[in-house]
Every structure is written in structure tokens, then in C-alpha cells.
């Protein structure tokens, strides 16, 4: 399918992206750059990928017209049910795609980073299915916070490698996974979990996640007669679910794309992950993008109640979409997101991931007409967040 999102030969989207990696990583990145487009374009790859997405992951996920939300917000509200995927979120789309790619590159071992554990679980799942060794890098602090997902990954046969450097969270798990990749460029493939990292990762992950908007188009056409909605709303951490939901609507002349960042305790509270609101251009994990940093260029540890949005940068494609006004980036606080999570649970019978609740919460801030068709990407389910959902409400009372 034609897309307006191809990076240039050095992996740049406008001024963003690229591959700012030390020479030790150059061969690893080059091997991927040289081969990824050709491999994923083969019929053999596409057939296997699509079959697994259908029969194993459970795609297409439903596009659900929510009568309750539509009445509440006086518009036509649809939920794209990525929460119904196997393993509970959109992350599995990318994990399956990359493991299939790794096999075709004759890799024997997979490494990945994870924050909340969703990408780790998805990667461990794909490795179990397709028979590759799997090591997941996870911050020591996150291992404590996300015990159920750590146990899931172990059950799936993955080895958990605690990241003990720096702030001992997602960004450090990413650093350590990249360092481990340096040590074994020949046998190991690194599966990055979001549209971040050096070229070609942003493009690779965006392509694997683009199935989300591909399905929305078909489903919306069936339901409304028009494949293009007025709005697509998605939460934005690194940005993989958002790019998946936006991909086929970019530059269509109709659809407004809204990416919702985690405002944490408030954009100016010092406890936030709202990169666009605060960020300056710089380099993180091998790509040029907006990131939260000090004046001296040190990366600042972000805050969000949702571990999946707790990342100090955003994917370079999102920086590009923002700067070129092809998408709008907004933010929602912890409180607003939690309220949206409780509301959807009570009113709709769906417990959303706290990440996805950020997108839902933004409905309150939109000026909608009754005829407006709005698709909210419900990127994941809230099972992993039960403790947070419970503790937060107890604190409130």
C-alpha cells in the first residue's frame, strides 16, 4: 500500500530519525537497513505474518460502535479493540512481525527491552511460538512494580535480565538491551517495542502496526460508507499504537489525527512524560526526535501513572507529524486518565489499559458535532493495571 511515511535513505523523516549509533552498532543496524524492506515485502513473509495475525493473534480486532459514549459525547464514537488481541495489547503485532524477520535473517536469539512488561510478554510469546531463545531486559525497579508480567514472561520461557544502571527503568533497559546487541551482532536480533530507535526501527515497527488503520478503514467503510473518520485519537508514549492507528489516514485531507501524551501530575509539575509539551530536539536511543532533557542535554526521567507512556522521548515519526502539523499532540493528566478508565469500566464493561485511558479522556476536551465520526484506539486491556486502578481509587477516597 502506498504511504507518505517513507524515511529518506539515511532514515530521516524531515529532520527527525536517522541512525545515531556508535560504530559498534553500525553493522547490526546496517544489516537490518539493507534487508528489512525486501524481506517483509515477500509473499512468503506476508502470508505467514497475516495468517498468524488472523488465527493466533485474533485479528481483525473489532471496530466497536459505542452507543453509550456516542450519547455522552454527542458524536459517533468507535473503539478499535486492540485490547482483544492475544496478550492484551497491540504490541503483539510488532513482536510477531519482528520474530518472523529475525528468523529470515537466521538469528537464533531475540532480545528486547520492556517497561511495564507488555512488549516483553508479547516478545516472549512470539519467541515461544516460533522457537527462538528470548532474553528480556527490564529495569530493576520495573521488575518489582510489574511482578505478574515478569512471571508471565518466565512461564513463556524467557530469561529476565535486570537493568541495574541509571534510573533502573525503561530507558535503561533499552540502553542495556542495545549494549547486549553490540556483543552479539551475528546471532541476535533486537526487537524494539515502539517506533523509536535507530533507522530502520521506526519504519519497521510502523509498518507492522499499520494493520490497525488498515482494518479501521475497511471496518468503517462497512459501517458508515466512508473509510475515513473525522478523528483518530490514540495515546502516545513511544508511539507504536498511535502510528498504527494513524498510518493510512495521514494526509488524507479529512481525518484529524490526535496523539495524547501522558501529562503525569501536570505538564509543568516536573512529574510528566509530555514530551511535545516540554521537549526539545535531541537524540535518544539512536534517533533525533523531541525528548525531555535538561539544558545541558541530560535525559530527564519522566513520570506517568501508566508505565507504557513513561518514556522521555517520542518516535521520530511523531516529531515529524507534529512539526508538519499532520497530527496534533495534546496531553492528559494521571487524574483525567484514571477517571476515564473507571468510566469506561462502569459504563461500557471494558477495563482499558491506563495508557489507552489517556486517549479516552481526551474525548472530554474535544468540540464535537453529532455527525463527527471519532475512532479511539483502545490499545490495550487493563488487566495488568488492576493494582494501580485499585490503589488509586483507595487513595482518592
Amino acid at each position: 500500500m502506498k504511504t507518505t511515511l517513507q524515511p529518506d535513505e539515511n532514515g530521516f523523516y524531515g529532520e527527525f530519525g536517522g541512525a545515531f549509533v556508535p560504530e559498534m552498532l553500525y553493522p547490526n543496524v546496517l544489516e537490518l537497513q539493507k534487508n528489512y524492506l525486501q524481506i517483509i515485502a515477500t509473499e512468503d513473509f506476508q502470508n505467514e505474518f497475516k495468517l498468524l495475525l488472523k488465527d493466533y493473534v485474533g485479528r481483525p480486532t473489532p471496530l466497536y460502535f459505542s452507543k453509550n459514549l456516542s450519547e455522552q459525547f454527542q458524536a459517533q464514537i468507535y473503539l478499535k479493540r486492540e485490547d482483544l488481541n492475544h496478550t492484551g495489547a497491540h504490541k503483539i503485532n510488532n513482536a510477531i512481525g519482528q520474530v518472523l524477520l529475525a528468523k529470515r535473517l537466521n538469528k537464533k536469539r531475540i532480545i528486547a527491552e520492556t517497561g511495564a512488561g507488555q512488549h516483553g510478554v508479547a516478545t516472549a510469546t512470539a519467541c515461544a511460538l516460533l522457537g527462538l531463545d528470548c532474553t528480556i531486559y527490564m529495569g530493576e525497579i520495573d521488575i518489582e512494580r510489574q511482578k505478574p508480567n515478569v512471571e508471565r514472561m518466565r512461564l513463556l520461557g524467557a530469561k529476565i535480565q535486570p537493568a541495574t544502571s541509571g534510573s533502573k527503568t525503561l530507558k535503561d533497559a533499552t540502553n542495556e538491551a542495545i549494549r547486549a546487541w553490540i556483543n552479539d551482532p551475528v546471532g541476535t536480533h533486537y526487537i524494539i517495542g515502539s517506533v523509536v530507535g535507530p533507522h530502520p526501527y521506526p519504519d519497521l515497527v510502523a509498518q507492522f502496526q499499520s494493520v490497525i488503520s488498515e482494518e479501521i478503514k475497511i471496518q468503517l467503510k462497512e459501517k458508515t460508507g466512508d473509510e475515513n473518520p473525522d478523528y483518530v485519537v490514540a495515546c502516545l508514549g513511544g508511539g507504536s499504537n498511535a502510528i498504527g492507528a494513524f498510518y493510512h489516514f495521514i494526509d488524507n485531507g479529512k481525518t484529524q489525527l490526535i496523539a495524547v501524551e501522558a501529562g503525569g501530575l501536570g505538564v509543568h509539575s516536573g512529574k510528566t512524560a509530555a514530551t511535545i509539551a516540554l521537549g526539545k530536539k535531541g537524540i535518544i536511543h539512536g534517533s533525533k526526535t523531541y525528548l525531555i532533557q535538561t539544558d545541558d542535554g541530560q535525559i530527564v526521567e519522566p513520570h506517568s501513572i501508566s508505565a507504557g507512556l513513561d518514556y522521555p522521548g517520542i518516535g521520530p515519526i511523531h516529531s515529524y507529524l507534529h512539526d508538519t502539523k499532520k497530527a496534533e499532540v495534546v496531553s492528559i493528566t494521571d487524574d483525567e486518565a484514571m477517571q476515564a478508565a473507571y468510566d469506561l469500566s462502569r459504563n461500557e464493561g471494558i477495563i482499558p489499559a491506563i495508557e489507552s485511558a489517556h486517549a479516552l479522556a481526551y474525548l472530554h476536551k474535544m468540540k464535537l458535532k453529532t455527525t463527527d465520526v471519532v475512532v479511539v484506539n483502545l490499545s490495550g486491556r487493563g488487566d495488568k493495571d488492576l493494582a494501580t486502578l485499585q490503589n488509586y481509587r483507595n487513595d482518592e477516597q
Partner: protein
Amino acid sequence: MNNRIQSLFETKKENILSLYFTAGFPNLNDTLTILKHLDESDVDMIEIGFPYSDPLADGPVIQESSGQAIENGMTLNLLFEQLQSLRSITQKPIILMGYLNVVLQFGEAAFIEKCAQVGVDGIIIPDMPLHYYLSNFKELCEVNQVSNVLLITPETSEERIKQLDSYSSGFIYLVSSNSITGSTNAITFQTEYYKRIQNMKLQNPHLIGFGVHNKKTFETVCEFGSGAIIGSAFITHLNENGVSKESISRFVNLIKL
């Protein structure tokens, strides 16, 4: 280009010792003290690391020293302030080493101009891609007589080595194994690779680094190049023994005597 790095390699062809330390570590104002004592020692060249929160090419020792330096308040601005008296302290070649994000926030032109102004001879920015150097830094470096030192690894292809050699100035930094700084596992097993590079007759001399940590590993790699770079082992030594003249000369003597 003619600076102190070039002069060093013209006059000395073997057993060159270059030591790396992180600015602002162990204490914020140790930079000049360390430089002074290194100047009094038998070290040939000095690399000063400006800290970054997420140093991808570095192992735990340099990451921790960088983290501590940031916590102590080290910034690139402050480092340049400290280095105003650099050339009254030492005439040895000085290289600044750090990551591109910190340089971008400081300003690309401002960074190179400041290097030249305080008397820094060269830079190593491990995560700066070659195309980015060519488009954004090459001219600045040449105008200001600042050498840009590029890295090669055991996995770097012959064609790329030649390319990197043609754009490196001063010397080539031969990374000993496919690894991060401070890993000491494979350094002596890479002789095939060292020989291969020796036989390529590059236009730049080369130093070998990553994992060199004592007299034995220093002497081993010196057989295959003009000398070696030691970072993590020196930082560990400073952390354990302090920055006194006695401590620093003891470390240098352990390697060189």
C-alpha cells in the same frame, strides 16, 4: 591540520598511552587536579569525557562515573570554564569525548570553537554518524584545527575502514572487541583483527582501546599499534585511590614501568 595530536604521532610511534577520565568525577572540581598530575606523569595523551546520562557505547564503570559527575553538577559549560586554564597546566594533547546530544544542546559551532579556544586538540563523539560529521562538523573542525577521531571495530568492513580512515584526523581508535568500554573478556584473542588492520597500512596511526586495563594488556595491544587507550580501569583507580599526585603516578607506573 597541525595540532598536538599530530605532533605526538609524528615524534612517537609506539607505546603511546592515552588515559580517559570523566570530568566532574569523583568530585566536581577534580578536572584540573587530574590534568595537572597526568601532566607530571608519563602519559602521552589525555581524553576528558563530558558526561551523558545514557552513554550507549560505555560499560557500567563509565556510566556510573558519568551519572555521578552529572549529579555533582558537571555540564559542558562548566567544563569549558574549568578548561580556561588548560594550557597553563599541560602541553599534552587533549581530546574531549562525549555523546552528540550534549553537543547539540551546547551548539555545534559553539562546541568546536570553544574546543579551539581553550586548546582542546581533538574530539571523539561515538554516536555521531559519518554522514552527519561530513555535513555538520567537518568544515568547523578543519577551520578550528580540531581533529575528529573515528572508531573502527572487529565487525567494520574493509571498505568502511578505508572510508573512516580517510575522514579521521589524528589517529584511528581501534575498538578491541565487539563490546562496550570496560569489558575485559576478549582483548587478547583479537590478534588476527589487529594484524589485519596493521596490514591495511592506513593513513592514520591507530590506538587500541576498550578493555585495556593493566601492564599485560597494554603491552599486548602495543605490539599491534602505536599504543593504547585506558578508561574504565583508570576511573576505577581514581574512585578507589583518589586524585592525588601519588595515586595517579602509581597508576601510570603500573602500566608503563
